[in-house]
C-alpha cells in the first residue's frame, strides 16, 4: 500500500502537477506501461511486487484522470485487472475485467481481451463454471466479426461453452 501511494505521488510530481486532463491521463497510462508494468514481467521477488504495486497505482490514477476518454479508461481498467491477476488477486481481477465490458461496451478490443483473460484464468484455475459465461459472451459477440484475431478467440471460446 505504501508503494502504491509512493507511485501515485511520484507520478503526480513527474507530471508537474498539471491540471487533470485526457492528455495527462494518457501520459500517466503510457508511463505506467513503460516504466512499471512492462519491467514487472522481467523482475522477480520484491522488485516485481514493487513494480506491480506501482503499475496498479498508475492505472488507478489514469482512470481517475481519464474522464470520458473511454478507450483510455477501458485500457487502464483492463490493465489494472491484469496487475491484480499477477498479484494473485484473481477474484478482484475477474471483477475488474467484468467491469470493462459493463462500463465500456463500445470498446470492442478491450472488452474482448478482458473477457478472454478472465475466462482463461478461471478455466486454468479449475473454475470452469465461472469461466463458461465469459466464453459464451465472447462467442455471441465476436463470432461474426471479420477480424482474424477476434474470430480465432470466438472459435476457441465456442469449444469451452
Amino acid at each position: 500500500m505504501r508503494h502504491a501511494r509512493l507511485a501515485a505521488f511520484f507520478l503526480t510530481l513527474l507530471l508537474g502537477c498539471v491540471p487533470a486532463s485526457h492528455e495527462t491521463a494518457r501520459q500517466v497510462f503510457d508511463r505506467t506501461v513503460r516504466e512499471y508494468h512492462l519491467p514487472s514481467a522481467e523482475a522477480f521477488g520484491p522488485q516485481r511486487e514493487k513494480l506491480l504495486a506501482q503499475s496498479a497505482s498508475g492505472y488507478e490514477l489514469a482512470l481517475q484522470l481519464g474522464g470520458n476518454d473511454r478507450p483510455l479508461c477501458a485500457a487502464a481498467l483492463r490493465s489494472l485487472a491484469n496487475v491484480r491477476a499477477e498479484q494473485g488477486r484473481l477474484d478482484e481481477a475477474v471483477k475488474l475485467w467484468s467491469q470493462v465490458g459493463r462500463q465500456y461496451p463500445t470498446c470492442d478490443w478491450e472488452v474482448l481481451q478482458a473477457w478472454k483473460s478472465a475466462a482463461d484464468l478461471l478455466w486454468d484455475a479449475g473454475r470452469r463454471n465461472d469461466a463458461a459465461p465469459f466464453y459464451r459472451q465472447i462467442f455471441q459477440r465476436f463470432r461474426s466479426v471479420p477480424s482474424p484475431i477476434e474470430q480465432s478467440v470466438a472459435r476457441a471460446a465456442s469449444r469451452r461453452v
Partner: protein
Amino acid sequence: MKRAFFYICLWALAMQTTAFARLSVVTLPGRDSVQLTIYNSADLTLVRETRFLTFRKGLNKLEFSWANTLIDPTSVEFRALTHADKVEVLDVSFPPRVTNTLEWRINSEVAGEVQVEIRYFTSGISWSADYVAEASRDEKRMDLAGAVRVNNNSGEDYDNAEIRLVVGVIKLVQDIADLARHGRPGPENMPTTVALDEMDKKDDAVRNRALGAMADAAQTAEARPREIIKENLSEYFLYTVEGRDTIPNGWSKRLPSFQASDLPVASYYKFEREQWGDQVVRFYRFKNDKENKLGNEPLPDGDVKAFRFVTADKLYSFVGRTAVKYIPIGEQVEMMLGNDQEVMCKPTLMNWEKTDIHFDGNGAVTGWTVKESWQVEAQNSKDIDITLDVRRNFSGDWSLATDSKYEKVDASKVKFVIPLKSREQQKLAYELTTRYGTNAAR
C-alpha cells in the same frame, strides 16, 4: 533489430493445462523478411513479416507484443506458409503478466522448421516523394531523378525491409480514413485503433472491408508489379522501391526511386499580370509517357527542385522549386518554377479615347465605346532562346486589332506567343476596343 517491447517468443508446452509455463524456449526468431506497403492517404501501413520458426509436434505458444507501437492489434494475423495444412491456430489469449501482448496457441503436426507470415497494420509510417530536375544548357533536355522519403514514427524498427508505396487513393481506404477522422477522440495523432474501437458495427464492417481490400490489393499487385489497377472508380498504383532498407523508429530515410536521363522538355515563360503581377514566370513541361522516356509508372505528388547546366563543364545553377500533383501515365506535367528576372515583359497603355457616345431623351449617357492603344515590350536577357507566352485579360464586349499573331484562350483572354532569341527585345502593339451600355452587343 527489434525494439525492447516488440518480440516474438516460441514455447512448447508439455500439457495444455500448464498455461503460461515456460518449459523450454525453442527459438527466438528474427524476421526473415519484412515488407511494408504504405498507404499514405489513410496513415496505414500493411506489414508482412516472414520468420522461420522451429515447432515441436503438438501445442506451441507464440507471443506477439505491440506495446509502445502504433500497431493495430485487431489486424494481426498469423499463417503458416509451409506445412500450412499441418499448422493450426487453436486459440489466442492475452496473458496478464505482460501488457499489450497476445499469445497464439498453435497446434503443429510437424516437428521442425516452418515458415510463417505475420501480417498486421500499423499507423505512423508515411512517405513523400521529391524530384531533382537537371535541365541542359539550352533547356531542351532534362535528367529527372525521383526519391521517396519514408518517415517511421510507428514505434517499431523495420530492418532490411522491402518498401512498397501506394500511389493514388483506394476508395475503401479513403472511407476508413474518413471514419477514423470522424470518430477520433483526443489528440490528432492518436492511433487509428482507438478511433476504430469507438465505431459502431457498421463502421467496423467498412473498416474490415477496407483492410481486406488493402491486403488484397497488395497481393494482386505483387503478382502484377508496376501496373495500374483500377477499382471502385479509384486509380492507384503500387510502387516498389528497389532493394531493401532499414527504417528505424524515429528516423526519416530518403531512398532513390527512379532516374530518367535526357528526356525532352519544353521550357517556356509566361506573363499574366492578373496571376503573377509584373513578373515573368518560368515553366518546364514534359510528358509522362514512353515517347518521353518516362511512363513506366504514375509519378506521385511531391516537391521538385530544378537546376540548369550553365557551362559546358556542367556547372549548374538553381532554377527554382515547386510542387507537382500526382501525374498519371500519359499526362503532361507543367512545373512552375517561379519568376525569372532575366526575362522582362512590360505592357504600357499608350493612348485612351472614349468615342461613340449616345444619350437618351433626358441627356443621360446610354452607350459609349473606349479605345485603348497598348504596347507590350518583351526582352530576353538570357544566353538562350526562349518562348514567351503573354496573356491579356479583357471584359465586356471587346475586340482586338493588331498586326501581331494572337490566339483566343477563352471569352475574356488572349495570348501572344513571342519567340525571343538570346538578348533580343521585341515590341508588339494592339488596339483594344470595348463597347459599353447600349453600344455593347453582348
